[in-house]
Protein backbone atom coordinates (compact mmCIF):
# COMPACT_ATOMS: atom_id res chain seq x y z
CA UNK A 1 0.00 0.00 0.00
CA UNK A 2 1.20 3.50 -0.80
CA UNK A 3 -0.22 6.35 1.20
CA UNK A 4 -0.20 9.62 -0.71
CA UNK A 5 -1.15 12.87 0.98
CA UNK A 6 -3.37 14.96 -1.28
CA UNK A 7 -0.69 17.62 -1.63
CA UNK A 8 1.90 15.11 -2.79
CA UNK A 9 -0.56 13.55 -5.22
CA UNK A 10 -1.53 16.97 -6.56
CA UNK A 11 2.08 18.03 -7.03
CA UNK A 12 2.90 14.79 -8.79
CA UNK A 13 -0.05 15.04 -11.20
CA UNK A 14 0.59 18.72 -11.85
CA UNK A 15 4.17 17.99 -12.81
CA UNK A 16 3.00 15.29 -15.20
CA UNK A 17 0.50 17.66 -16.79
CA UNK A 18 3.14 20.37 -17.05
CA UNK A 19 5.41 18.00 -18.92
CA UNK A 20 2.82 17.00 -21.51
CA UNK A 21 3.20 16.13 -24.42
CA UNK A 22 6.44 14.61 -23.15
CA UNK A 23 6.73 12.07 -20.39
CA UNK A 24 7.36 13.67 -17.02
CA UNK A 25 9.04 12.09 -14.03
CA UNK A 26 10.08 12.63 -10.47
CA UNK A 27 10.88 10.97 -7.19
CA UNK A 28 8.83 10.30 -4.10
CA UNK A 29 10.31 10.66 -0.65
CA UNK A 30 8.89 9.26 2.53
CA UNK A 31 8.89 6.36 4.91
CA UNK A 32 9.13 2.82 3.60
CA UNK A 33 7.46 -0.12 5.27
CA UNK A 34 6.96 -3.83 4.74
CA UNK A 35 3.27 -3.48 3.95
CA UNK A 36 2.60 0.25 3.90
CA UNK A 37 4.75 3.12 2.72
CA UNK A 38 3.95 6.77 3.16
CA UNK A 39 5.10 9.35 0.65
CA UNK A 40 5.53 12.75 2.25
CA UNK A 41 7.42 14.59 -0.46
CA UNK A 42 7.33 14.90 -4.21
CA UNK A 43 10.54 15.79 -6.02
CA UNK A 44 9.70 16.75 -9.61
CA UNK A 45 12.58 16.09 -11.99
CA UNK A 46 13.48 16.84 -15.54
CA UNK A 47 13.15 14.09 -18.11
CA UNK A 48 16.66 13.93 -19.48
CA UNK A 49 15.40 11.89 -22.43
CA UNK A 50 13.02 14.69 -23.45
CA UNK A 51 10.71 12.12 -25.00
CA UNK A 52 7.04 11.30 -25.20
CA UNK A 53 7.90 7.59 -25.00
CA UNK A 54 10.71 7.19 -22.50
CA UNK A 55 12.01 8.98 -19.48
CA UNK A 56 15.23 9.24 -17.57
CA UNK A 57 15.36 11.19 -14.34
CA UNK A 58 17.93 13.93 -14.87
CA UNK A 59 20.87 12.64 -12.79
CA UNK A 60 21.45 15.95 -11.01
CA UNK A 61 17.77 16.07 -10.04
CA UNK A 62 18.13 12.56 -8.69
CA UNK A 63 21.09 13.62 -6.59
CA UNK A 64 19.22 16.70 -5.40
CA UNK A 65 16.20 14.65 -4.41
CA UNK A 66 18.37 12.18 -2.53
CA UNK A 67 20.04 14.96 -0.60
CA UNK A 68 16.77 16.74 0.10
CA UNK A 69 15.25 13.54 1.39
CA UNK A 70 18.24 12.87 3.63
CA UNK A 71 18.11 16.42 5.00
CA UNK A 72 14.41 15.96 5.74
CA UNK A 73 15.02 12.71 7.58
CA UNK A 74 13.25 10.63 4.97
CA UNK A 75 14.40 8.53 2.05
CA UNK A 76 13.57 8.09 -1.59
CA UNK A 77 10.86 5.42 -1.76
CA UNK A 78 9.93 5.51 -5.39
CA UNK A 79 9.57 7.17 -8.72
CA UNK A 80 6.62 8.46 -10.70
CA UNK A 81 6.32 9.08 -14.40
CA UNK A 82 3.57 9.80 -16.87
CA UNK A 83 2.22 7.82 -19.77
CA UNK A 84 0.91 10.35 -22.22
CA UNK A 85 -1.31 8.04 -24.28
CA UNK A 86 -1.37 4.66 -22.59
CA UNK A 87 -2.64 3.03 -19.44
CA UNK A 88 -1.32 3.72 -15.99
CA UNK A 89 0.54 0.41 -16.03
CA UNK A 90 4.27 -0.34 -16.21
CA UNK A 91 5.56 -0.88 -19.72
CA UNK A 92 8.14 -3.55 -20.56
CA UNK A 93 10.69 -0.73 -20.50
CA UNK A 94 9.59 0.25 -17.00
CA UNK A 95 10.00 -3.32 -15.82
CA UNK A 96 13.36 -3.84 -17.48
CA UNK A 97 14.81 -0.64 -16.03
CA UNK A 98 13.30 -0.65 -12.55
CA UNK A 99 16.31 0.28 -10.42
CA UNK A 100 15.29 -0.86 -6.96
CA UNK A 101 12.98 -3.75 -6.00
CA UNK A 102 12.20 -1.92 -2.78
CA UNK A 103 10.76 1.11 -4.53
CA UNK A 104 7.20 2.06 -5.42
CA UNK A 105 6.59 2.77 -9.10
CA UNK A 106 3.75 5.18 -9.77
CA UNK A 107 2.46 5.61 -13.29
CA UNK A 108 0.23 8.57 -14.11
CA UNK A 109 -1.81 8.15 -17.26
CA UNK A 110 -2.79 11.32 -19.10
CA UNK A 111 -4.69 9.44 -21.75
CA UNK A 112 -8.14 10.43 -20.53
CA UNK A 113 -9.63 13.71 -19.35
CA UNK A 114 -8.82 12.92 -15.73
CA UNK A 115 -5.28 11.76 -14.87
CA UNK A 116 -5.12 8.32 -13.33
CA UNK A 117 -2.35 7.36 -10.93
CA UNK A 118 -1.63 3.76 -10.00
CA UNK A 119 1.25 2.31 -8.03
CA UNK A 120 3.19 -0.90 -8.44
CA UNK A 121 6.01 -2.91 -6.96
CA UNK A 122 8.40 -4.29 -9.54
CA UNK A 123 10.85 -7.03 -8.59
CA UNK A 124 12.49 -9.84 -10.53
CA UNK A 125 10.60 -8.79 -13.63
CA UNK A 126 7.24 -9.16 -11.92
CA UNK A 127 4.63 -6.45 -11.50
CA UNK A 128 2.37 -6.29 -8.49
CA UNK A 129 -0.16 -3.50 -8.23
CA UNK A 130 -0.67 -2.00 -4.80
CA UNK A 131 -3.40 0.07 -3.29
CA UNK A 132 -2.98 3.82 -3.33
CA UNK A 133 -4.60 5.61 -0.42
CA UNK A 134 -5.09 9.34 -0.74
CA UNK A 135 -5.23 11.24 2.53
Amino acid at each position, binding site marked *: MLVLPDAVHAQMVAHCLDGYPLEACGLLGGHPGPTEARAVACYPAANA*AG*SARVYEVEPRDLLGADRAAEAAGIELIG*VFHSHTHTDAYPSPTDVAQAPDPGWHYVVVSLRDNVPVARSFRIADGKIEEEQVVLQ
Partner: protein
Amino acid sequence: MPVDVRLPTVLRAATGGQATVAADGETVAEVLDDLIRRHPQLGEQLLTAEGGVHRHLNIFLNDDDIRYLGRLDAKVGSDDTLTLMPAVAGG
Protein backbone atom coordinates in the same frame (compact mmCIF):
# COMPACT_ATOMS: atom_id res chain seq x y z
CA MET B 1 43.62 9.41 1.79
CA PRO B 2 40.24 7.70 1.99
CA VAL B 3 37.17 9.37 0.59
CA ASP B 4 33.56 8.77 1.51
CA VAL B 5 31.50 6.78 -0.94
CA ARG B 6 27.77 7.04 -0.51
CA LEU B 7 25.76 4.10 -1.78
CA PRO B 8 22.13 3.72 -2.80
CA THR B 9 19.91 1.34 -0.87
CA VAL B 10 20.03 -1.26 -3.60
CA LEU B 11 23.84 -1.66 -3.23
CA ARG B 12 24.07 -1.64 0.55
CA ALA B 13 23.65 -5.39 0.92
CA ALA B 14 27.19 -5.65 -0.44
CA THR B 15 28.53 -3.44 2.37
CA GLY B 16 26.73 -5.06 5.26
CA GLY B 17 24.05 -2.39 5.16
CA GLN B 18 26.37 0.59 5.39
CA ALA B 19 25.17 3.63 3.47
CA THR B 20 28.56 5.34 3.46
CA VAL B 21 31.89 3.56 3.27
CA ALA B 22 35.49 4.67 2.86
CA ALA B 23 37.75 3.88 -0.08
CA ASP B 24 41.21 5.03 -1.13
CA GLY B 25 42.37 6.48 -4.39
CA GLU B 26 43.41 9.58 -6.26
CA THR B 27 41.05 9.09 -9.16
CA VAL B 28 37.51 7.82 -9.40
CA ALA B 29 38.86 4.64 -10.99
CA GLU B 30 41.20 4.00 -8.08
CA VAL B 31 38.50 4.68 -5.53
CA LEU B 32 36.12 2.26 -7.24
CA ASP B 33 38.84 -0.37 -7.47
CA ASP B 34 39.54 -0.05 -3.76
CA LEU B 35 35.82 -0.06 -3.01
CA ILE B 36 35.47 -3.34 -4.88
CA ARG B 37 38.51 -4.80 -3.12
CA ARG B 38 36.88 -4.03 0.21
CA HIS B 39 33.41 -5.11 -0.91
CA PRO B 40 33.82 -7.65 -3.74
CA GLN B 41 30.10 -8.09 -4.28
CA LEU B 42 29.99 -4.58 -5.70
CA GLY B 43 32.28 -5.48 -8.57
CA GLU B 44 29.84 -6.61 -11.21
CA GLN B 45 27.30 -4.01 -10.17
CA LEU B 46 29.60 -1.06 -10.70
CA LEU B 47 31.84 -1.93 -13.62
CA THR B 48 31.48 -3.70 -16.94
CA ALA B 49 33.77 -6.53 -17.99
CA GLU B 50 35.74 -3.91 -19.92
CA GLY B 51 36.28 -1.85 -16.79
CA GLY B 52 33.88 0.98 -17.62
CA VAL B 53 31.06 2.25 -15.45
CA HIS B 54 27.75 0.51 -16.04
CA ARG B 55 25.49 2.78 -18.03
CA HIS B 56 22.73 2.36 -15.46
CA LEU B 57 24.91 3.84 -12.74
CA ASN B 58 25.39 7.53 -12.04
CA ILE B 59 28.47 8.63 -10.15
CA PHE B 60 28.78 12.08 -8.66
CA LEU B 61 31.93 13.68 -7.37
CA ASN B 62 30.45 16.04 -4.81
CA ASP B 63 27.84 17.92 -6.87
CA ASP B 64 29.12 17.01 -10.30
CA ASP B 65 28.39 14.09 -12.57
CA ILE B 66 31.74 12.47 -13.40
CA ARG B 67 30.69 12.35 -17.05
CA TYR B 68 31.67 16.02 -17.13
CA LEU B 69 34.85 15.64 -15.11
CA GLY B 70 36.72 13.02 -17.09
CA ARG B 71 34.71 10.03 -15.91
CA LEU B 72 36.93 7.44 -14.25
CA ASP B 73 40.01 9.65 -14.68
CA ALA B 74 38.51 12.44 -12.54
CA LYS B 75 40.81 13.41 -9.67
CA VAL B 76 39.55 12.81 -6.15
CA GLY B 77 40.68 14.57 -2.98
CA SER B 78 40.38 13.61 0.67
CA ASP B 79 37.51 16.04 1.27
CA ASP B 80 35.50 14.75 -1.67
CA THR B 81 32.47 12.50 -1.58
CA LEU B 82 31.52 10.08 -4.28
CA THR B 83 27.80 9.36 -4.52
CA LEU B 84 26.63 6.37 -6.49
CA MET B 85 23.05 6.33 -7.69
CA PRO B 86 21.29 3.98 -10.09
CA ALA B 87 19.89 5.50 -13.23
CA VAL B 88 16.15 5.90 -12.91
CA ALA B 89 14.50 5.44 -16.26
CA GLY B 90 11.73 3.74 -18.08
CA GLY B 91 8.97 4.44 -20.52
